[in-house]
């Protein structure tokens, strides 16, 4: 389906997004809504959005004209679980940053993958704590100078899309905000996936990350994404040294294992039989 007639305003409240100029979260919001449009949804009535704390958690809340629950830091996924298990007929979507979903909330993310919880989680990975002013994140590349690692960061970053794939999710993909077309397709796939679907979007934060690494505009960072992205199938033939500093993009998991909702429905049927 084409994007003709698409305007993100159709899905948005008449409010200003709070993001800095050049923020990747605009791209993520717009690409998500474009995917929703292409799937044929004229509004967001069949959606519930859950988010935690951080800039990316503001993407749906309250800007999307929809039900949204803006929760505590890291806890959006278990809140989404509660919503989904009571209303399995609704599309439940989580938005969060890297600090939210693979920092403080990592355990919930892996358990969502293990359970194959039937929601879509979209992680805006800007590789830094942006809202609090450029502190090191679990996604920050090693040796990066941040405000809490002024001599360079000294920990390995997490490979979120692979962690979620290994955790048992039916779908896990990584793209960057440079790759808007494949990202849109990934959102469409995720929203149609039963079981857990995760999309890591490596995203630009010119304000906090860009300042720290000397990439002052979003254009600089997007060009860096373009130059350093490697498709998963190409990465498979590359050595560790060759992959250093690269962003591997593509689909890391695409399965059709039963999701949590289906498994719970099976359990409920069994319970009714036993009880009679």
């Amino acid at each position, binding site marked *: 389906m084409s994007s003709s007639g698409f305007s993100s305003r159709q899905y948005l409240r008449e409010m200003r997004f709070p993001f800095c100029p050049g923020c990747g979260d605009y791209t993520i919001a717009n690409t998500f809504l474009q995917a929703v449009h292409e799937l044929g949804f004229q509004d967001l009535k069949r959606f519930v959005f859950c988010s935690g704390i951080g800039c990316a958690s503001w993407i749906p*809340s309250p800007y999307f004209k929809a039900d949204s*629950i803006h929760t505590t830091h890291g806890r959006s996924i278990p809140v989404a679980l*509660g919503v989904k298990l009571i209303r399995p007929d609704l599309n439940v979507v989580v938005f969060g940053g890297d600090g939210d979903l693979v920092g403080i909330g990592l355990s919930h993310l892996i358990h969502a993958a293990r359970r194959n919880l039937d929601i879509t989680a979209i992680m805006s990975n800007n590789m830094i704590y942006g809202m609090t002013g450029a502190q090191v994140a679990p996604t920050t590349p090693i040796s990066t100078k941040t405000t809490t690692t002024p001599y360079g960061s000294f920990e390995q970053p997490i490979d979120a899309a692979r962690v979620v794939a290994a955790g048992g999710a039916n779908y896990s993909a990584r793209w960057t905000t440079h790759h808007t077309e494949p990202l849109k397709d990934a959102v469409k796939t995720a929203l149609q996936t039963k079981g857990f679907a995760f999309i890591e979007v490596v995203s630009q934060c010119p304000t906090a990350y860009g300042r720290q690494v000397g990439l002052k505009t979003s254009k600089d960072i997007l060009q860096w994404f373009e130059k350093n992205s490697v498709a998963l199938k190409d990465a498979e033939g590359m050595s560790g040294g060759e992959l250093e500093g690269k962003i591997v993009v593509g689909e890391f998991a695409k399965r059709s294992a039963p999701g949590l909702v289906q498994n719970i429905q099976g359990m409920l049927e069994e319970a009714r039989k036993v009880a009679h």
Partner: protein
Amino acid sequence: MQMKSRKLRRNSIDQTHFLQGNEACAEGAVAAGCRFYAAYPITPATEIAEHLARRLPPLGGIVIQMEDEMASMAAVLGASWAGAKAMTATSGPGFSLMQENLGLAFMTETPCVVVDVQRAGPSTGQATKCGQGDIMQARWGSHGDYNTIALLPNSVQEMFDLTIRAFNLAEAYRTPVVVLADEIIAHMTERANIPSLNDIEINNRRKPKPGDELFFGGDDIPPMPAAGEGFNVAVTGSTHDERGFRVTADPIAHTRLVGRLHRKIEQDQKKIAEYEANNAENCDIGVLSYGCTSRAAYEAVERAREDGFAVGHIRLKTMWPFPHWGVRTMAESAKSIVIPEMNLGQALYEVQRAVEGKASVIPLNKIGGDEMITPEEILAKIAEVS
């Protein structure tokens, strides 16, 4: 055991059962309409999960064991916003982890029930032993200016009754409600009557009318939509206006919101707080008790009267809001008030506040988990202060 659970599964109601406190709590939840339970195993609360795991699925309800207590509390909030009555249960260590999302539940006006079966702390402490050390955690455990409803069962019957009341208060006030049980009450087995469902009063949250937009203000207790009903409800733990939109830099919005959340409980405290008073208005010595300790206090008070002491007794059924007016009345005649507690003194501070120096407040504390405070110890304290 098999017979009993089969009977309960069939809802063979209106009869007397021989039940464990935790089972009675679970049955209270079922009767109140709870259809979602998320929790993490912890002694001495685990039987609530085990009992509900058998009971809820045949009724279409869901029991899910979460990865930790933060997730448990979060899932309960999600289920509540999806329209379900939802509960979790835990003990002190898990209750500490739940404080984060208890604050969120208060701020977002999310009805839900948290059962805290108290054990001896701090930290891991004595997992299998009784304590009453979470009295103040239940009031002040989360950060910021919030308000709490916490109920104090002292029997298996009350584990059933007060769990239902907790749901009713949560629904009526759109706020989280804590059942502050203890290991002794939760693990004892005694007779409990489960009335016919028709004889149980059940409250349900007020729903909005089509076109309503104010779900976080307007009225002191606004109507609550559920996700998927088309209201486009914006829920946030940040300071928000009546529509739920974040207004974090506005001092007036914050004062208005937090003031209302406080007020909706404060102004109804005499309706919410329940206590039993026995000769409390005309006594030389008062005893104030709650939870498991109150069972020893009943006997001690009776024996003290036989020995000629003019003893009054207040047994709290609600810790928060604290019924300071009842305690204050007792202090008009009593020169001393004895407070037996299985901690190093917690309700004591609230009594001191209530009596404003009109009576001496006498602690009687026991920790260690070996045995509860005995009637003899309370009796000896009454004789000592007379």
